[in-house]
């Protein structure tokens, strides 16, 4: 039904699917309710009719919602699954949260406080923290992963889109939680390699 080619689209699609169904149901419920309140107002409808229930209706409005939420569950699961399915040859990056900044460590030992990613390449994030809990959140990438002091959480991600976006902390971590912002830059693979080499040289 949807093009699940990348994670960002899959989240957007699942969101659209759930919001669409919810909106239809909400509008339906609200209009029915207001129509009944108008039509059966005591001024127009003096004598109420006692209807104690209807088994068929109860079954119908139990089964249909179960099927709808089943679909919602499935779309949510599909997108999530791409994040936790291991990919070979991924660029490995350690993401470390500390009150109140982010550290990124690359395989060749390069350390940075802004995140550089190669476009169209699989990336493996290993997320942890030094002090209290944080959460590694890139709104544009539609995911976050809590950074905990005693856990290494691993996610796989890939995007073709180049650009610069915000990284925020999403788990409350004290005084400057609101200001734990940094940037992610997604650049072409050659440009990324050049940046990494330059950083490595700078470290020496």
């Amino acid at each position, binding site marked *: 039904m949807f093009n699940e080619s990348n*994670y960002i689209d*899959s*989240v957007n699609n699942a*969101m659209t699917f*759930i*919001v669409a169904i*919810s909106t239809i*149901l*909400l509008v339906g*419920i609200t209009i*029915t*309710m207001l129509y*009944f*309140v108008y039509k*059966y*107002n*005591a001024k127009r*409808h*003096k004598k*109420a009719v*006692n209807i*104690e*229930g*209807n088994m068929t*209706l*109860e079954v119908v*409005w*139990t089964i249909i*919602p*179960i099927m709808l*939420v089943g679909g*919602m*569950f499935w*779309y*949510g*699961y599909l*997108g999530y699954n791409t*994040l*936790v399915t291991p990919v070979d040859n991924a660029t490995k990056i350690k993401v470390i949260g500390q009150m109140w900044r982010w550290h990124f460590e690359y395989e060749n030992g390069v350390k940075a406080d802004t995140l550089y990613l190669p476009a169209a390449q699989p990336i493996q994030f290993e997320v942890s923290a030094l002090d*209290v*809990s944080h*959460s590694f*959140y890139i*709104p544009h990438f*539609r995911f*976050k992963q809590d950074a*905990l*002091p*005693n856990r290494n959480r691993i996610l796989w991600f890939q995007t073709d889109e180049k650009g610069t976006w*915000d990284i*925020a*902390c*999403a*788990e*409350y*971590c*004290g005084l400057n*939680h*609101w200001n734990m*912002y940094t940037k992610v830059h997604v650049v072409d693979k050659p440009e990324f390699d050049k940046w990494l080499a330059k950083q490595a040289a700078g470290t020496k």
Partner: protein
Amino acid sequence: MSSTTSDVNVSYLDYKGKHSGLLGWITSVDHKRIAILYLVSMLVFFSVGVTFGFLMRLELIAPGKTIMEPQTYNAIFTLHGLIMIFLFIIPGLPAVFGNFFLPIMVGAPDVAFPRLNLFSWYLFIIGGLLAIASIFMPGGAPDTGWTFYIPYSIRTTTNVIPALFGAVLLGFSSILTGINFVVTVHRLRAKGMTFWKMPLFVWSTYATAWIQVLVTPIIGITLLMVIVERTLGVGMFDPALGGDPVLFQHLFWIYSHPAVYIMIIPAMGVISEVIPVFAQRTIFGYKFVAGSSIAIAFLGSLVWAHHMFTAGMSNTAMIIFSALTFMVSIPSAIKVFNWVATLYKGSIRTEPPLLFALGFIFLFAIGGFTGLIPGALSVNLNIHDTSFIVGHFHYVMFGGTGFGIFAAMHYWWPKMFGRMYNRTAAKTGFWVLFTGFNLLYFPMFIMGWLGMPRRYYDYLPEFHIYHLISTVGSWILITGLTILFTNLIHALRKGEKVTERNYWNGETLEWITPTPPYVFNFDKEPVVEAGPYEYKRNDVLEPALEEEKA
């Protein structure tokens, strides 16, 4: 002996016991007086909570510092959460209206353990005052958020311990009230009041009482463990001491998610009372509405880890908790459909309580649908811990439970106090509140989806417009609240006097008691023959009367 009997055949408000004045109230074991004690204290706490909410919104009206420092802001959102959850939403319906009406609705003279009931109120007050006192103690107000997440709550130097201990006492108050209600329902029902004849408010309060009894001890123990960890350095949750913070999150949410249902199920009960009465017909699908409360109570105890999808669990756990989260929406949906169907072919009076009930259905539906969205795993990873979630739970807790509390107030006020409020003012207040509510909370969905994290003192310029609308909404909302409460309080002294027993033409037992109810509620022992909403006597009587005329 006969003189004693006649003494208690007076309104509970006029009763002259051993003590008079304030002492006559704070030593009374009458469930109705205790309910009023809870009502007054709850509303005082509520006004403190609203003030904190107002200040937070004011700070967020524009980027940069507006009126306070980050540390103050962090303390204020912590206390706003603690006060609203533990001192307003949780006790709002069970402790106030459950206390007042549960015994009456099952035909009992009081709850099963009246003294324990008064003791619960004292625990509630001491716990509440302790939480508020933490603001003024040296060290400063707690700044952990109401969730007390470890390791931060171990590291911060603020007054976490008084707040934690306050929450433990409030938990015990909640457990004791729960036990009282369960025993009352099992042991004190009037003759003929079988389980399937109980009013739906009783069903919902009964289901809630079981959750209170079963899960509240877990939070009590967990918070005590945090106190031990902070004071003695025993490592249970803090990784620096060899503990596990995720364990704390599990234990916290094993209580705090069912607590969401402790908050919402009684409100559903109120709506199930109000709709049949103002449609003047029986409820549609009584057994489904009653049974779905039990289903929610049961399923709601199995979904706690959906608060922790970003913390990381095994994939199996993620999938199971996501699927169960979707399942718990089903009994809520069943309730909504049955309420709407109850309006069908009714004879509807759009009195203030019904307006609040309809407002509840609309806002709770939005709260429910926006709860499905974070139930989906991938979407959850985007919107968890953003203002989307803040919007969602305010729609459920305030649009749902809050409007349920206001519906209950407007429905039962004439019975409780023998005075009627001004209907036009109540309806005006409703519409102002409803408008302000949506302006305040709806923008949170949009900015949350766009990446506005929650618990942020400041924000990026692109979110300004949403924050501005939200803050203006908060002013309209507070105006609405002011109209409503001024009207209700004004009615206590100046409102039109009500002496008739059945003000709204309801069929449940509180409407056969004198107005206001006598000390032991009934002037003659109630005997129950019909179900709670069987407007059948109209069906039987009216044709008979018409025949007589003919």
